[in-house]
C-alpha cells in the first residue's frame, strides 16, 4: 500500500511537467521514412511512406553498387569505397574497399555492422564509430559464394554460403578463430538475406519466404522477377531489386504485417 502511494505521487509530479510542455511537443511532424533504397540508376534515396504508398526522396549518394540500412545505420559500397551513413543519409565515415559488391549485416540494435567484400574476401566491421578489418579464416572454399552475412551477437558472425551441395550457414567468432559451427540450410535458395533477429528471407515458386529462427515460415505471395537481389531497407523492410529491369520492390517483414509492394522507380 505504501509502495502504491509512492508510485502514484512520483508520477503525478511527472505528469504535471508533461502537460506544461505538451503543446510544444506537437511541432515535430514530418513524413514517415521507411529507410533507404538503392535504385537502378545507382543512386541511394530515402524512402518515405507507409505500406502501399511510397515516395522516393532526393539522392543522397551515387554510383552505389550495394547498400543496406538497419533503421538507424546504413552501409553502402561504391566501386572503391565502403561508407557508413546515418538516418538522414549523411555519410559518417568511409574506408577504401576492393572493387565489386558487398553484403551487409547488422546487430540487433542496428548500431554495429559487418560488410563482406567478395572480391577480396574481406570482412569489415563498423563499431564504436570506426571501421575495423576483421581477420577471419572461416571454413569456406574458393568455390563457395557468400550470399549474405549476419551478426547474431557481438562476438560472432555468420556467413550464408552457396556450395555445390546447397546453402550453408557458417558461424565463426569475430576474433579470427576458425569456424565454430556449420549447418545446411535445407530448402533455402539464393538469393537470401539474413536479418538481425535471425530470420532468413528467400524465395520459392510462390513468392517470398520468411524463415524464423525456430524454423517456422511465413510465405508472402508475389510474382518475382526472373533474377533479383535482396537488401535490407529498414528495420522491417527488405528491398528486392529486379536485376533485369529498373523495378524495385519492398517486402514488409514485420511479423503479422508481412506484405509485398512495388516501389516507384527513381527518375520517373
Amino acid at each position, binding site marked *: 500500500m505504501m509502495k502504491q502511494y509512492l508510485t502514484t505521487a512520483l508520477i503525478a509530479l*511527472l505528469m504535471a511537467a508533461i502537460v506544461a510542455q505538451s*503543446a510544444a511537443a506537437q511541432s*515535430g511532424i514530418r513524413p*514517415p521514412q521507411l529507410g533507404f533504397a538503392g535504385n537502378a540508376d545507382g543512386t541511394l534515396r530515402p524512402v518515405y511512406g507507409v505500406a502501399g504508398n511510397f515516395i522516393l526522396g532526393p539522392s543522397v549518394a551515387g554510383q552505389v553498387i550495394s547498400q543496406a540500412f538497419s533503421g538507424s545505420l546504413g552501409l553502402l559500397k561504391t566501386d572503391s569505397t565502403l561508407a557508413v551513413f546515418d538516418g538522414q543519409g549523411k555519410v559518417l565515415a568511409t574506408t577504401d574497399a576492393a572493387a565489386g559488391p558487398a553484403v551487409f549485416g547488422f546487430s540487433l540494435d542496428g548500431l554495429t555492422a559487418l560488410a563482406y567484400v567478395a572480391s577480396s574476401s574481406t570482412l569489415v566491421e563498423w563499431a564504436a564509430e570506426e571501421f575495423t578489418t576483421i581477420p577471419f579464416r572461416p571454413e569456406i572454399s574458393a568455390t563457395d559464394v557468400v550470399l549474405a552475412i549476419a551478426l547474431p551477437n557481438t562476438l560472432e558472425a555468420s556467413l550464408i554460403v552457396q556450395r555445390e551441395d546447397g546453402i550453408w550457414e557458417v558461424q565463426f567468432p569475430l576474433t579470427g578463430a576458425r569456424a565454430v559451427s556449420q549447418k545446411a540450410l535445407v530448402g533455402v535458395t539464393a538469393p537470401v538475406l539474413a536479418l538481425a533477429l535471425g530470420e532468413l528471407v528467400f524465395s520459392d515458386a510462390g513468392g517470398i519466404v520468411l524463415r524464423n529462427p525456430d524454423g517456422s515460415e511465413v510465405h508472402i505471395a508475389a510474382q518475382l522477377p526472373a533474377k533479383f537481389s535482396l537488401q535490407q531497407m529498414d528495420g522491417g523492410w527488405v528491398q528486392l531489386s529486379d536485376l533485369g529491369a529498373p523495378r524495385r520492390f519492398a517486402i514488409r517483414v514485420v511479423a503479422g504485417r508481412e506484405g509485398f509492394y512495388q516501389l516507384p522507380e527513381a527518375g520517373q
Partner: protein
Amino acid sequence: MIARVVLLFAWLAALLPLSALAQLEVYEFNGTTDTAVGALVNVGTAAPGDTIVTRFHVRNTGSGPAVLQTLSLAGAGFTIQSAPSLPYTLAPYVGLASEAEIDIDFSPTIIASYSATMLVNTTSIALQGTAAPSAVVTVGSSTTPLSAGATVNFGSVDVGSKQAETFVLTNSGTANINVATLAVSGTGFAGPIGLFAPVSLNPGQTASFQVSFTPKSGAAAQGVLTVDTRTFNLTGQGLSALPPNASIVFASTVGASAQQNSISIPLAAASQWTGTGTLTLAFQSSVTGVSDDPAIQFLSGPLRIATVTISPGDTSAEIGGQPSMAFQTGTTAGTITFTLALNNGTQQATLTIPPSQVNLDADTFSAVRLYGSLNVSFGGFDNTYSASQVAFTFYDLNNLPLPQGTITVDSASAFQQYFSATQAGGMFQVLAEFPVTAGSSTLIGSVTAQITNSQGVSTAQQIPFGN
C-alpha cells in the same frame, strides 16, 4: 488323311502375316481427294532445285487388321519424306484416321527424266517425274531461288492499303525458256503486274513483275502464284482500321488510400489492328485547398502516362510494355481517373478514394525513455488533411492509467502547417517529446495516442516504452 490336311492348313495359316489375310491399297492424295493408283504414277514436272511432294495414303480394305511391313523406294531423284514407323498395323479402313500417309519428294538436280520404284508390302508402284528447264523465281532483293511450294509473306497491311512484292524470273540455263503460265489467285492478292504470259526468256535474261496484297478485312489472307507447273504460296495479314473494343479493368475495385493496385486492358476480340494509344492517370482531390497528391502515380515508367500497345492477335493491350500496370492510390481523398485513348475514341474508369479516419501504421509506433524526456512517435496518413486533436494517455507498469487522465493537445494548426508544405500527401509522422522535470519516467510503462480528424478518432493502442 483328311485330318492331316486340315492340320497342315491351320499350321500354314498361322505362319502367314496379317497382311496376307487383309488387303492394302494405295491412293494418291491431292490434299482433298484420294485416287487409287495403278502401277505407274507420274508426279509431274519440276525445275532442277525444286521439289514436288506427292502424298500417298495406304488403306486396309480388308475386314481384319493388316500390317504394313515393307516400304522401300529405289531410284534417283525420289526420296521418302515421311512415312509411319514399320511395322505399322492398319485397322480396317473407316476414314482418314485409319489410313497411313507416305510422302514422297521428287527433287531433280538436272534436266532429265526420272523414275523410281516404290514397294508397299508386295505392291510395286513405278514413279516417274520430269525435270524441265524453267525460270528461276526470286522475290524482292533476295537472290535465293524460291522452291516450288515456298511461302512469300506480305506481312501485316492495313485494310485498304497495298503492299507489293517484286518477283523476278531468270533464265539461268543455256537454252531459251518459255513461261506459258503466270497467274495470281487469292482474295486480296493481285497480279502479275507489269508482265504477262507467255514470257520468253533467253539465256541469262530476266523479267520482273509485281504481286500486290490489298487486304479486304482484318484477317489472314492466302493466295497462290503459279509459274507454269510450279506454285508458290502467298500469305498476308489484314489489319483492321480500328482496334477492338477495349476495357479498363482494375485488379481491385476497392477505392482506398495507400493501396497498390494494377490496371489491365482486355480486348473484346483478338486484335486485327496494330497501333498505340495512351493511358493517362489524373487525380481530382476532394480535400479543400489540396490540388494533388504526387504519390498517386504509375509505379513504372512516366508518372501518369503510359503507352498502350496493341498488336495483331492480342487479346489484351500492353501498358508500358507490360500486361498490366501497377499504380498506387496515394493518401488523399478524391477521385483517380484513368483515360484510355485509342484511335477509335477514349474511355474512362474511375476509382473513388473516400475520406476516412486517420490510418495509423503500427510500424511507426515508438515510445522511448530518454534522459530528461519521454519521446512518443506514431505515424500514418490522414487523407482528409483535417487532423486536429491529439490525446495521450499514459499507463503505469501495471497497465493502469495515470491519475492525471488523458492529455489533449489541439494540433490542428501544426498539422495544417505541415500539410500545406509537404509533398507527402496525407502521410505524417508525429514525434511528441515530453520533457520530464520531476519524478521518474521509469514508472511509466506505455502510452496510448489518439488522433482526431473530420471522419472520427483513431487510436494507437498502448505503445510500450523502451529505453
